[in-house]
């Protein structure tokens, strides 16, 4: 297991390879469909300091608000499917100098090129592990656009401790998703009697 803490240097990111298992700590930001569209179209500055050499997490959490203190905490916070951000991701990575994207299911060629160009990686979290990942969230420090976007879509600035992820797309153009797809395609051809 490799341990990394945000902000992460380009050098540390370039050293990561597909298949590496990482425990991530530090400040990260959640953002999904509405947030990505907004970051491309409106380029908000409020989120810049949290994303510089930082990590964006594709996640629509279940959040609890303590009525007496007004503080938020994450109840369940696993990754959501990343593919929907494909049209935006490379621009967002470049614009905000992001070093890591956490999600599930992997992303396409456009994002792969963006990762290579800026020096960033795609980190795959365990889909469905909502309660366990929420336990890795030590603090919810800020939220932006909560009223406009609603709970799942807002920008939640959170601190995480030892959040387990697997590097499935590195900054050198490699993709575990591509490798597994190709291997399984060969296996399928055999099973279909075409090999």
């Amino acid at each position: 297991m490799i341990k990394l803490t945000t902000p992460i240097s380009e050098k540390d990111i370039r050293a990561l390879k597909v298949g590496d298992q990482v425990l991530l700590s530090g400040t990260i930001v959640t953002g999904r469909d509405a947030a990505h569209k907004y970051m491309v179209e409106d380029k908000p500055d409020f989120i810049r300091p949290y994303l510089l050499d930082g990590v964006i997490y594709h996640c629509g959490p279940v959040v609890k608000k303590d009525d007496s203190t007004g503080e938020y905490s994450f109840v369940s916070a696993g990754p959501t499917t990343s593919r929907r951000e494909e049209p935006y991701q490379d621009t967002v990575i470049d614009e905000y100098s992001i070093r890591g994207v956490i999600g599930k299911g992997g992303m396409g060629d456009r994002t792969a090129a963006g990762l290579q160009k800026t020096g960033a990686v795609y980190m795959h979290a365990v889909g469905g592990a909502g309660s366990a990942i929420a336990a890795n969230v030590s603090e919810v420090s800020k939220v932006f656009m909560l009223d406009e976007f609603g709970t799942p879509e807002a920008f939640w600035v959170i601190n995480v401790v030892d959040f387990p992820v697997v590097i499935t797309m590195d900054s050198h153009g490699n993709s575990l998703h591509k490798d597994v797809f190709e291997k399984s395609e060969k296996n399928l051809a055999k099973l279909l009697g075409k090999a």
Partner: protein
Amino acid sequence: MPSLVKSGAVKSDSLYAPHGSLYDSVLELIRLCSTTLPPDIVKSLSNALSTEEGGSIAKNVLDSVLSNIEMAKSGSTPICQDTGSLAFYIHYPLGVSQIKLRALINEAVQEATKKQYLRPNVVDPISGKNTGTGVGLETPHIHFDEWDKDEIEIRLILKGGGCENVGIQYALPHSDLGASRSNDGVQKVVMDGVHKAQGMGCAPGIIGVGIGGDRITSMEIAKRQLFRKIGNRNHDPVIAEMETELVANLNKLGIGPMGFGGISTALDVFCGVIPRHPATYYVSISYNCWALRRYTMTISYDRDNGTLGEASYD
């Protein structure tokens, strides 16, 4: 599963009252579904863990999945933050009102959303607005059937959006896959469908297959298979054999947990068959993620003296 709800006599109109015992039992059904993975699925995931190579990503993923299941159960928090779309399948005795039961369920779903057992997942496709309450027009989906037992049976499944997206329907014959209108053809399209899904439906999946029917009933029968317990085989030996073969073959694809490679791609395959039109032959796949959240609640109801029994959950 022990019930938290006391049994006792209820007046027929108080049967449907908010915070009455039927209402509380339904709320408990929702909580249980969201937070406690059924024992057959947990066992199957533990078995899958033991088949994966030590130190592999696949093994670590399954380890995380299993500790997540434990944490959700002990903390009574959602297993997955996507608490899915709710579908209820209800059997009820004569004298129970569908209208009132629907209202009761809508109430319970809203309460469960407030209690964070459910994330509000009901979005208007045109405006993009989330109702925020967990309910909406014809949502949750509720299917009613009357029966002649003195029991109310409520089955609930919470089906995640990620795995719903990788579901697929084929019309046979399918020339690209060389799939004819035969058992062999059915197997071929199922393998293709699961291959297309890769890890995107949060593999290892549980695969419901509907064979026959029309475009709609075929998918419906596929989805209903997801209520079958892991290891359960179709009563028809031919279909049962197909299920067994399919599980073995799917686990040769090498997709593995989350699509990171590995052995466990499918925990089980359940096929359901209904008659088709001579001109059509549909094979539908309802893919469910490892987080298959479904329970059946049974509660006895004696209409004559209005006695509601204690709810059991299986």
